[in-house]
């Protein structure tokens, strides 16, 4: 029994016909074709599927799509300004924080949420914020560096 889902994805309002038991992850990936949101474990442990719903971080693999009815979802595809990368995306590249890249979308969104609530985080705060995001390649050092560099850039941009 398909139902209508009112959802805003990356700034675009849409009405989707979905099954009530569909996961937000599957609606994004299979329904809308936004495959930047990744599934690593399927049980809310690894953080790869992290997206923002009304500014809050959620694990899209544990969220029914119907739960976000009437809300705004931001995925990794929605944070660049056209062809201009978000400072977090650019810093991840410049600092070598991306290797296989499978965890990067979740990490970048997690960092984005952190920086919007705390624009000047300490290194410990960054490490604490990304605790729930697994990375198997980098050892996290470069990721933390990239987030701190992006934070500094965003702060100087805000002051300018």
């Amino acid at each position, binding site marked *: 029994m398909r139902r209508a889902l009112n959802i805003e994805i990356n700034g675009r309002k849409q009405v989707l016909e979905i099954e009530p038991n569909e996961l937000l992850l599957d609606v994004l990936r299979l329904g809308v074709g936004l495959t930047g949101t*990744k599934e690593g474990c399927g049980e809310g442990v*690894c953080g790869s599927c992290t997206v923002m719903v009304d500014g809050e971080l959620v694990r899209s693999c544990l969220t029914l799509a119907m739960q976000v009815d009437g809300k705004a979802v931001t*995925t990794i595809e929605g944070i660049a300004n056209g062809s201009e990368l978000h400072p977090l995306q650019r810093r991840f590249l410049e*600092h070598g924080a991306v*290797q296989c890249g*499978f965890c990067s979308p979740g990490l970048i969104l997690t960092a984005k949420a952190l920086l919007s609530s705390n624009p000047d985080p300490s290194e*410990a705060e960054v490490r604490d914020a990304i605790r729930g995001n697994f990375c198997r390649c*980098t050892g996290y050092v470069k990721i933390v560096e990239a987030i701190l560099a992006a934070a500094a850039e965003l702060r100087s941009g805000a002051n300018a």
Partner: protein
Amino acid sequence: MHNIKDSAEFEVLGKNVIREEGHGKVTGLGKYAIDLEMPRMLWAKIKRSTRPHAKIINIDVSRAQSLAGVHAVLVDKDCPQTLFGFGCYDEPLLARGKVRYIGEPVVAVAADSEAIAEQACDLIEIDYEDLPAVFDVHEAFQTNPPAIVHEEQERYRRVPIGPVQYDPKHPNAFGYYRIRTGEVEKGFKEADVVLERTYTNAMMGHAPMERHNSVSLWDADGNVTVWSSSQAAYPLLNQISEALDIPHSRIRVIIPKYVGGGFGGKIEMKAEGLCAVLSRVAGNRPVKIVYTREESLCWAGVQHPFDMKIKSGVRKDGTITSCEMFVLVNGGAYAQHGFLVTRQASYGPLGSYRFPNFKLDNYVVYTNQPPGVAYRGFGNTQIHFALESHIDELANAIGMDAYEIRRKNILVEGEINAAGEIQHSVAGSELLDEIKKGLEQHGTLVREGKGPWRRGRGIAFANKDSVAPSASSAIVKVHNDETVEIRHSAGNIGQGSSTTLIQIAAEFFKVRPDRVKTAEVDTWITPYDQLTGSSRITFAAGNAVLMACEDVKGQILKMAAEVMQASPEELDLAGMKVFVKDNPDRFMAVRELFRTVFFTGSFLPTGGELLGKATFTVPSSKIDPETGHAADDGMRKIFSFCTRAAQAVEIAVNTETGEVKLEKIAIANDVGLATAVAAIGGALLIIVSPVEPSLDRVYIGRTFCVVVLAGLGSVTGTLAAGIILGVIESLVLTMFGASWAPAVAYGLLLLVLGIRPQGLFGR
């Protein structure tokens, strides 16, 4: 041979370059295999064994077949009656007659959705008759084991390496290697202390973030195309060929530019062949399978548990006189990589130390555990863990320092090791000295910490060989806009290999790296590569790319010679300009070779393309099966090359809770020339991931200072700046105390930037 080797200063190599596929990764727009969807695509699921060892009495698939949305249900008899493997050919696509481990594929289903396929699997009923099972490697190794996992193994096809692999006295052992040097008993008599210890390690999963997945299509023309999250296109192609009994020419393997990690766990075929059969049965529809995290962790190959007994004799002065190793590798239910992992691990210890007398027997044994595969070093991690632990115990036994005993026995340049292999580019002593210095700069160890915390220091050494014989091919195309395109089949699993190859080609042509790109790995387009594994890509594929660049350069010079009315020998190429060596003002751009001859647009006047092609191979010496020694054929070569590394750490242990904290670490790796600094730096830093947050700043901060001090881009300058900073730091440390040391780097940096903003050696 190649001008790249002659130049002291590099313009692209050794620099930080944004990785080729980076944009796709940070924007989420890059398509991994797991993101692929195709019209008419079906989803597959595998019904796996719930028994470790059991006869299959009956499989009832009738309810699954009649479920709406199910398009194919396969059991063994529906599949080609073949056996595939990796050196030892023992595995059917689906369990044949009996199951040998929990998780073994028994039935495969293709359906309209993953959910329907899963539901169909639940409707399948399998009747088993349990057999005795064997899990422990010692029990399995017995002459009369509790269970024989492969009764027919004597008839299995094997590649002929090492001594006779099947021994009826050990009916579960499927691979055996031995090395014999000198006389170990005599060596034990010459020793002051003889020590025997056993080391074991647990089974582990690779856990790449992107789980194992693929799409297979058996099309109506009889061709099989596979898109896979794999790290080895050609080995996969070969395994599909063996499993499906169709020729290589009918198979096409495509590996997307985006692969979410591998770590050795994505070399072997997983369900690609099985899904191809599903595709054919379901009416030539593409069939996708995505392993669950559980399947990916447990049943897509694990790291082999090793049981390593080491007996060594050592003199009081630290000289190791003799070493005997007996290793049992728990291979799991199918050979898979076990056959080769065991061989590589057998030689692992011999690249580190000098053993005048050495004896090794290494068996890989079938059990009813999940099959093991390569895992970050083909068995080297296991064997080095044992060897380094053992060296520490030897040092303790004679009251010697852990550094001194290693320094005493470490192999040196040009030495012939205990397997008769000549050792090249050996940085053993230097690496040990580096880590010693690295840790010593933190002062002496204070064992007693606050409350229950105690501290200790330790060091370890390792070497890592790379397989030989080895072969990589590359094609390099120069387009009419002077873009260089590299076609190679070395899968980039996240380590950044395609960017490394881009840097090599960019350095050769003296062009910016963004003027070079790589083609997606596709075995119908990109040429042969042995595998992304065995630490071989930068060396093997890198040399192939370099040689292909040389080939295409020759063609360019020849064509330009006609236009410029010169001989090709008088000309050279740099920055996509062909110029006369003696008179660089006489030049033409490579793009000028392309003309619009007719309505087809801008091509070479002769038609065709600027296409260079090359294959780089490394031969190996014949190995004597009795002694495991390389033949004295002038090469004395078992591996392509061997790299070495050393680490020293200081850790704190909470004696009440057992918590361990890594407090300080010094890492010395012999990387040759770092082609991609950020990539290698990142790779090394994985080791320090659990370190307390502020630790890495010590290194990063200094490195930053050294690089800026030197002036960005100056390699020799960086070396000089490093030495300058080191000397000044030591002086300040001695004269003013340790608390001033951190100020030195930044102080010096400020001073130099004030006087000479481009850095000491910058242009």
